[in-house]
């Protein structure tokens, strides 16, 4: 199963997700994407960089200090703004891999996080 197949599978199960991108957050690079509409590369890059900042960036580390010891590295982040939702999930298998998801607020966030982690695990085991 190719990476994009995992992403397509996720979108099929969660139609509220308009974009699911898989990236390397250490480099800030989108490696594969499944999207309802073709997004410009700059938009995808910005999405991945937001994920990098939220999960691994300098300020993410400062947020980590506000949480109890042992909270780092951050495992997932949600950004909710203007009726939109972005979800960033770190891979449980490869710490630098992550999913960057754009969805509508109606999505079952818990279920999406759980399924997204499972897909990341599967991708990491390939």
């Amino acid at each position, binding site marked *: 199963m190719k990476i994009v197949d995992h992403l397509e599978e996720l979108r099929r199960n969660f139609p509220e997700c308009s974009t699911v991108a898989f990236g390397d957050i250490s480099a800030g690079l989108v490696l594969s994407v499944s999207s309802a509409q073709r997004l410009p590369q700059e938009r995808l890059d910005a999405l991945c960089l937001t994920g990098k900042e939220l999960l691994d960036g300098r300020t993410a580390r400062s947020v980590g*200090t*506000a949480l109890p010891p*042992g909270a780092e590295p951050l*495992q997932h982040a949600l*950004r909710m703004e*203007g009726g939109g939702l972005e979800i960033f999930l770190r891979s449980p298998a490869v710490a630098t891999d992550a999913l960057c998801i754009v969805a509508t607020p109606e999505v079952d966030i818990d279920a999406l996080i759980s399924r997204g982690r499972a897909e990341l695990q599967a991708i990491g085991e390939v």
Partner: protein
Amino acid sequence: MRDVRKLKDKLDRLAAAETPAAASGRRDLAGEGPQELLAAILREIDDTLLGRELDFHNDRGEMLGLDVSGRRLLRVRAVAPETLQETFSEHLDQPISELRDPAAVALRELLQVFLDGVRTVTVEPRKLSRRPRESQLGCSADALATAWDASLIGEDPAPALPDGPVGTFLASAGDLALAWIALSGEEIAGRGGDGNHAERLAALAEGGFALPGKPRGDGCILLSGNDETGASLLYGAAGEARVALIFPSENLARITALWQAANS
């Protein structure tokens, strides 16, 4: 909207307070007349997350000692002087879990006597000397306020958070938090909940609160660490208000559901 007003009221009172609500030392309660003072006592219970002994003193020199934890009244620990204690002695130290518990019913009557004709009441919080048993549920300030026809919301609360989806969400989520701080600009306007967590948030705020991808308009960012630590952080912006909360990760589903409900 009741939850929204409740948190707004709490944030206002926190912002106005010279000392945090959980600080030690005796403080005057705000309110005039028995009903307002009763509401003030219930608000003290509602503001008390950690286990505390709350000793209330009126200007007649009478004292009422309540054990409180998790915003719930656990028991009446002490009543003084003996003349006030007479009708209540059999209920002292009896666990309270429901409104219909004899100790809760008797407490309502005791409070009427305690508050009748007094002008000022002070509260002195201390750490609980006895850990409550896990089975001891206590009775929530909300339930007491409803049964006793008292409001946990001040009469004229100045809005700390704007109405609208984000304000509604933040106000509801605040009830699930371990601690929060409210910011006005870059200044901390108020804080509440567990002191250690609030200090962590305050330290973060003093560093400029440069959260990554901080929403430019109304919005929230929620960050979760390793599952073992069991804590998550939320930063929210609503109008001019900025709020940061630390909450148990077990509340994540409720937090996200509240946000979804507020935005639906």
